[in-house]
């Protein structure tokens, strides 16, 4: 692992209270800064927190918020919760899938986008909802979603 990544992780570890419980918070920060949890990062965090690698790997695979492969620069989340489902979220997910030529859970070859299905974003009144990074798009149609994606190219 390069020294730069080590320094970043060291800083993140210092921010949190030491001990096994810090692993989730540290992984969240690493995920946000690096876009994924690399093998080196997981091994380094486990070494620093003095927890078994198996334990750290278990945590890393448990939460869907963590990815073990690099994600795209823009993370597209399509809500498939009950309200969004009723409002045709499947069609929207399909349209994005065709547009970006990737399946949910995958990343485009140019690393610009990754597509994720999520169950509920907690804003059912805005259904159907698509979230790109931290921006939420409410009541989107299939056509609108294409122009939304263009903004992030």
């Amino acid at each position: 692992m390069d020294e730069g990544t080590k320094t970043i992780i060291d800083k993140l570890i210092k921010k949190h209270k030491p001990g096994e419980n810090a692993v989730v918070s540290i992984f969240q920060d690493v995920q946000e800064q690096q876009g994924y949890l690399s093998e080196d990062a997981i091994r380094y965090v486990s070494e620093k927190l003095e927890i078994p690698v198996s334990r750290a790997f278990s945590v890393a695979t448990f939460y869907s918020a963590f990815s073990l492969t690099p994600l795209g620069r823009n993370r597209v989340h399509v809500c498939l919760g009950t309200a969004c489902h009723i409002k045709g979220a499947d069609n929207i997910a399909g349209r994005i899938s065709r547009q970006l030529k990737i399946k949910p859970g995958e990343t485009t070859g140019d690393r610009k986008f990754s597509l994720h299905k999520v169950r509920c974003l907690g804003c059912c009144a805005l259904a159907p909802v698509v979230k790109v990074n931290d921006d939420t798009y409410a009541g989107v149609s299939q056509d609108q979603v294409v122009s939304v994606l263009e903004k992030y190219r």
Partner: protein
Amino acid sequence: MTMCNITLNGKKTKFLPGKTILENTRDHGVKIPVLCSHEALKPYGACRLCIVEIEEQGRKQIVTSCNSHVRDGMKIKTHSPRVQKIRKTLVELLLARTPEAAVEQQLARDIGVKATPYPEQGELCIMCGQCVRTCREIVGACALDFVHKGSKRSVAVPFFRDSKECIGCGSCVFVCPTGVVSMHDEISDVRGEPERIMDKWETRLPLQKCSSDGNVFATRRMLEHFARKHEVSEGFLETCSHCLRKGNTK
């Protein structure tokens, strides 16, 4: 130690307060089915088969006996209709997951479950976690843990391959109740040296030849692991226990 006054299946008896309900009932010759419980390991409470019905001050409750302690005045029923109904469902679910596992089939026969009404999944791992816990609690290598969650949950070494922590001791193979964890020794195609392959963990470990009789006797990493944890006699790392006993060290 003052004993606890217990009513076990309608009979007044005395239980040891320091022991769990499961241990106490066993001492009294009452058989409760278990899958994830192992006497060498800490209580885990995953398989739920050891459930019993307890009653305290008129309040009835279903608890797992393997990790519940005894209190004075407790009424315990190990095979009440309520317990047996839940236990039957549990066995049906477990049988659906691992229909081929002998331990599961035996359990179903004991309980009187003929077939599972749920779709069969054809797995062999019953998720008892005995391999994970043995590796952690007894061996101390911590090479194994559960990964993913829900229906994708499984046991694996970090990154699913070449574990640097696995010492190839085979404790996980020994403890696995269904035989899904396996290992074998062979001569490596690449180096021509004897190796141990932990099949499920995708890990290969070089084996040590005895300096005295030339027989392969343990993985090198296993010997190093023991040498780190305990004081070992001279020649321990190179000589098999058979030759050590005879004093044939070189």
